[in-house]
């Protein structure tokens, strides 16, 4: 029988690893805040600030419809279906697909991951069915291109050059292919909305795309677009947690400063996990 918890530093195995205790506490606090935010304000509308990239989503779809050109949406090469960013991206895809189905605008979704392809087909098909346009759905437009990073980049580049999309959505986890796609999209004159959790690629998107959702904005975006209460509540929870984090940072910094000033060195570092 394993003990429930053991003293740190011993080699014994336990149900609860003491090194992980801070993460467990933080997880439970965070989960508590999310649940609180979801149920406490249920039914009351949320006031959220604007995110410029999201205002442009409608415009991008409208433009593609007007110009009778397709819209390309791709989740990048860096993520797999287990990644929360991919879920957030597919969430936005569902919103975009609902609109393209209504306007009868062609939606092309190339991906490097067959599992993402499978899920995306399902997401788009359902969105089309929901608006009563199931007949407009084309499963071959949601396609697996290549798992190789630059095979994928070459394929999507080819698609962009040949299909001349009016709008390109680059939302998900991107690596080096980000700028290849963004510059090619720019060269065909597409309006481009990008968003990623890959911090490096953000800088390329900022320089090359019309709108960029920075990190957390990508997660908030699906809530904005769908006005889905549970997602908006999550956004609210994230904000509450940010306040907690800022308070933590201020208190801990002041603590460390006082400890240093009083000549005790930085003191016991309770803030380091």
């Amino acid at each position, binding site marked *: 029988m394993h003990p429930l918890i053991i003293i740190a530093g011993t080699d014994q195995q336990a149900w609860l690893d003491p090194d992980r205790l801070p993460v467990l506490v933080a997880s439970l606090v965070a989960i508590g805040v999310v649940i609180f935010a979801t149920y406490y304000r249920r039914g009351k509308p949320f006031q959220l600030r604007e995110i410029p990239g999201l205002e442009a989503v409608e415009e991008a779809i409208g433009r593609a419809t007007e110009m009778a050109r397709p819209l390309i949406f791709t989740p990048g090469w*860096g993520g797999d279906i287990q990644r929360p960013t991919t879920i957030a991206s597919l969430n936005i895809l569902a919103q975009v697909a609902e609109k393209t189905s209504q306007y009868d605008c062609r939606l092309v979704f190339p991906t490097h991951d067959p599992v993402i392809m499978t899920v995306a087909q399902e997401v788009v098909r359902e969105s089309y069915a929901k608006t009563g346009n199931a007949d407009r759905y084309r499963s071959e437009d949601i396609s697996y291109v290549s798992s*190789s*990073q*630059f095979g994928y980049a070459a394929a999507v580049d080819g698609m962009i050059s040949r299909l001349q999309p009016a709008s390109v959505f680059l939302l998900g986890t991107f*690596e*080096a292919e980000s700028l290849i796609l963004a510059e090619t999209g720019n060269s065909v004159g597409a309006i481009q909305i990008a968003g990623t959790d*890959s*911090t*490096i690629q953000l800088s390329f998107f900022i320089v090359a795309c019309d709108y960029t959702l920075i990190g957390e904005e990508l997660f908030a975006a699906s809530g904005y677009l769908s006005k889905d209460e549970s997602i908006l509540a999550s956004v609210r929870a994230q904000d509450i947690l940010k306040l907690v984090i800022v308070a933590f940072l201020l208190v801990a910094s002041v603590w460390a400063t006082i400890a240093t000033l009083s000549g005790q060195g930085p003191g016991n570092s309770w803030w380091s996990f």
Partner: protein
Amino acid sequence: MKNFQSRHLVFLGLFVLIAVVMLIGGGSEVKVSPQTQKMYDFLDSLPRGSVVMVSFDHEASSLPEIRPIAEALLRHAYSRDQKLVGVALMAEGTLIGYRLMESTAREYDKNYGEDFVFLGFKPQYVAAILSMAESIEATFPEDYFGTPVGQLPLMEGVDNYQDVAAVMSIADGSFTTHWIEYGRIRHNLTVIAGVTAAMVTTYDPYLASGQLETMIGGLRGAAEYEQLIGVPGGGGRGMPAQTASHIYVLLMIVAGNVAWWMSRRKRDA
């Protein structure tokens, strides 16, 4: 020629510039950064015979930048008689990783099986990293050539991360993060890295928090390291073209602003 736009001019200029600089050739001396020095000191201070795991966590496409970095680090490790265990977390790093380890080993008369081994590729990096913490042999029952790991002299007594001094992640993407998240945090494995210049800022926070022991980045990092170990290589050779290309990009930023400013003035007038 109706398709010829200003961007084509930008492309052509870069192509011609790099070609000319490379045809002229030459090398240049660089100043060694503290991080590169720290990497050198770290590898230098490991006792002879320490086992260093080298993980090729990159795609084949970044070989041009990865090669000089990996070669400089491998040369240093071999010259310090460290035992190297190569693995690849990305399929495309497999053949390349083996080629790099093997060609540098030859320079130092190192033998396969005794001084270095190459275990090959394991898909699903998270699983691979976690499972090697339990048992390397269970994760890689055979090496790249199908020899049972138990038959490799080097692997005797190398069961899991407790027998490994450090893992050196050669990466062109975020894979070093996985070594940090699953190797370092969960199993206290020391992680060092040789990464492409693009990835350097990604790893800064990990360096600052100490989760990543040390790293060298990019062609420049390779050039610095080559200088420290006193073996010239691709890093130093590429530096002139590198410098020229930086100046070119700077010029493009300036030119873009001038063009924009002039068009604005014309519009206002």
